[in-house]
């Protein structure tokens, strides 16, 4: 079982959803990193609308889970934090998307 994964509510035991990605802010972070090769902190703030502290907290969780690789460097005297999805993060996000689609398609009309 990958980090953050757990069985969901009763009646849907056959489905597993990655709760770490399922949180809306983290899902947006993962989605933005999924569509590019790498980005920095400011890019994510601009495109997700999260605050600096909020984004930092979510990234720490994603980094601990091994979904996001964080690389800190300096450009002149300014620090730059480069972020990218790891292979594990990319496959977890793909799996999350298919799980979500399957779960929603299982709901009767």
């Amino acid at each position: 079982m990958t980090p953050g994964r757990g069985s969901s509510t009763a009646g849907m035991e056959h489905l597993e959803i990655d709760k770490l990605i399922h949180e809306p802010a983290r899902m947006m972070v993962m989605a933005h990193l999924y569509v590019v090769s790498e980005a920095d902190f400011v890019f994510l703030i601009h495109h997700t609308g999260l605050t600096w502290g909020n984004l930092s907290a979510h990234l720490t969780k994603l980094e601990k889970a091994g979904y996001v690789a964080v690389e800190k460097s300096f450009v002149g005297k300014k620090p730059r934090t480069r972020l990218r999805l790891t292979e594990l993060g990319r496959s977890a996000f793909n799996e999350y998307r298919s799980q979500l689609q399957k779960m929603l398609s299982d709901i009767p009309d």
Partner: protein
Amino acid sequence: MEQTLDLIALERRAWRATFDDGLWDMALGLFLLALTAEKTLVHFPVAESVRMSIFVGLELAAILVVGAGKRLFTLPRIGHVKFNAKRRAKLGKVEIISALAVLLGAALWVGMEKSTGLSIYLQQAMPALWAVAALITFGLSAYLFEYRRLYFIGVLYAATVPLLRFLETLYSPVAASLVAFGVPALIILVMGEMAFVRFLRATPVPEEEA
């Protein structure tokens, strides 16, 4: 925060944000202003070295606007991003098209300036060739970059030489050059400046929390 999750739209929005700042518009406006200066000053008793200095100075200003503007204003606001391989391949295509366009444009420009060795048919066809070359290169670049204002800029660039040829039959060469090149250059510059101001207002630098 974003309420829908369309991955293609997310990627496209991130890509298009690259041109929201209007810096490329301003650079293209300055480039056309350099051509205006060249075309106009040739009719005044100005040394060629001075004319060339003004031309090169405006070209350098165009490069500086993009280089320094991106570094000082754009990147602190929208951050750095490295796009996926598909986007980078498109960027490569645009770079090739741009290089070819610059060479073709320079060849046509020289052809128009020193047209004594050219046949009369080729001389007459030069404005049309210029317009077609500008429309194709700007159109392709705008399509591949998804940079919509570039279509309009391409039309303005394409119109310059045919308009000059037409206006020269009605007015003095100086007035014709100023209108044919200067007016489109100013339109592009103003368009870029408006986009830049809008970008600065809409996109503040994110504050780092203590």
